[in-house]
């Protein structure tokens, strides 16, 4: 199980949070998603064999949010 931490640009609306959460959770291989609204961070645990961290990052980017940096453990 890998863990990715994505730092986004500041989030302004609580509905952004639900959007990101929903979109990531739907991806196959993603186990848990936690969106930190105030810190503008996304923490996701995922199965590295089924989905890559870059794919996660792309999903968030496609929703219209800028990913400033990403850490994978």
């Amino acid at each position, binding site marked *: 199980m890998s863990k990715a931490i994505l730092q986004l640009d500041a989030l*302004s609306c609580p509905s952004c949070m*639900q959007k990101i959460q929903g979109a990531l959770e739907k991806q196959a291989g993603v186990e848990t998603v936690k969106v*930190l*609204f105030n*810190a503008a961070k996304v923490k996701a645990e995922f199965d590295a064999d089924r989905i890559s961290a870059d794919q996660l990052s792309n999903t968030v980017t496609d*929703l*219209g949010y800028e990913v400033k940096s990403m850490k994978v453990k």
Partner: protein
Amino acid sequence: MKFQRFINQHINQITLITAALIGIGLLGNITKIGWLYTWSFILASIISAVPIVLRAFSALRFKTISIELLVSIAVVGAFIIGEYNESAIVTFLFLFGTFLENKTLAKTRHSIKDLTEMAPTTALVIGEHDQIEETDVDFVDTGDVVLVKTGAQVPVDGRIVSGSGHVNEASITGEAKLVSKTSGDSVYSGTILDNGTLKVQATKVGDDTTFGKIVELVENAQDTKSPAEKFIDRFATYYTPAVLIIAALVGIIFSDFRLAITVLVLGCPGALVIGAPVSNVAGIGNGAKHGVLVKGGDVMNTLSHVDTIIFDKTGTLTEGKTAVTHFHTYSDDEKGLLVAAAVESQSDHPLAKAVVDFVQSKHLDFSYISVTSSNTIKGRGINALVNQERVLIGNQQLMADNRIELSTKQLDDLHAIQRQGSSSVIVAVNHSVQTIVGISDVVRTGVKESLQQLKKMGVKKTVMLTGDNQLAAQAVAKQLQIDELHADLLPEQKVTFVKQFQNEGQKVAFVGDGINDSPSIATADIGIAMGSGTDVAVETSDVVLMSSGFDELVHAFGLAKKTVLNTKENIIIAVGTVVFLLVGLIAGYIYMASGMLVHEASILVVIFNAMRLIHYQTKSPKIDVDQVTESRVKLS
């Protein structure tokens, strides 16, 4: 999706263009150029509606009826019936309001941002052949040795393998004080080396470091919702669709389309949704800046209702180490004390160590005194020979065994020490009593004042639970004016007491040093750990006081009360706004654009109100209590 991203990135420009177009439109109105007026507003409406409609749709895809949806329907409606100026102004105000919201929200979030920006980014790793390589802090492994130069940040948690210097640990303890560190000492990531050079072997790196944990804790805390927030969240999920239905009903019943779309705009739950969370974000941020980690809005809420605070004694109310607290001398020189220190320096008894520390703290030299022989008499003290003089150091029994009588004054002093629950040591040289010292666990400075402040702030009862003996505990309780005391307790018995208070209907906070008190900390309504970032403390407690200070406890309690009050104020402002708008609508004074203006203004008001919390401060009590009582001291 690309289009949406483009719009999101250029939202500020869109707002600006809309403002300009509205300006041109108004100019057209004044100069009576009809086409300019109409087309400017049409253009402004379309441009500014795009981002709002997009957001409404993307929220709808996730089955959320958002505020944007209400605004979108209202604006499209206004556009259809030809109210171009209304639609333009409403969308502009909504965008501009969001812009201001983001700016001000960023301010309330500033303290976490400051915190994360304090995190070290690079490290100088010393390789196998002593070569130094600068790398990203993420690539340092445990076991690596890093070099820390003067002025640089310590990039890892670790142990100093060589070098020494003074470290500013403000990022961990909240206290800007230089701490001397040398080989073998632990250093923490995020602290700053003020002078010297260190080589540090990493024991923890990245997010596992104490600093990393603090950042994570504060980030999570700001998103942990208070009961008020949870209620509003639930309320908002029903409220927003309800507004949609009400607007439709109003439109059908009064067959007034314009009224229906006005209700949509007025019904936006803006300030209500943002009011409570923004107070908590500001409150928790304030705490983090003052060395108080509060784990979320619900903790804030419970903490503000605490009426009983239970303290552990050793290590919490007291320093947890013995020291000389009373000192009486009965001769004109300091010989008794110096001889005692010389003899005691060969012993590892805790009382002996306290005497030696005391003499050293007075900068007196006893190294020239040579001890010829020294015998420990169990349960009595020490019988020694120094410079052909017989030296007896110990309790009253030792003196009695050697037929040394104490004068009335000496007996009085001795009894005074014993009444305070301290241990006493009598020093006699050549059968004459020179000195009597009282040794006890020192009460920490400022505790008494802090307890008084807590009482003033609404704490009804203070309780001390300790594993120590009754006499010693009583002495501390009396000195600090603690209301209730239970001594000779095991950790599990402490838990029983905590539960007992809870059963009596009191909201209980337990303050302990985090390690042996974990069960009580976990049981209490609010567990408060005094601990400079020990893992156990950070994990089991609800509130962590980073530098273990009692003024931090006062700050935490005051901050919780202020934050909860602030949340209530914000809810009142938000509900008041909706009521005001409704009355205004019925009275016929409020229309779509003016309604939107009032809405956006109320959102800014609640944010500004919350921002007052950022600067909240409790006045710290004056700490100037010299706890050592000395009589007839003639030491230079």
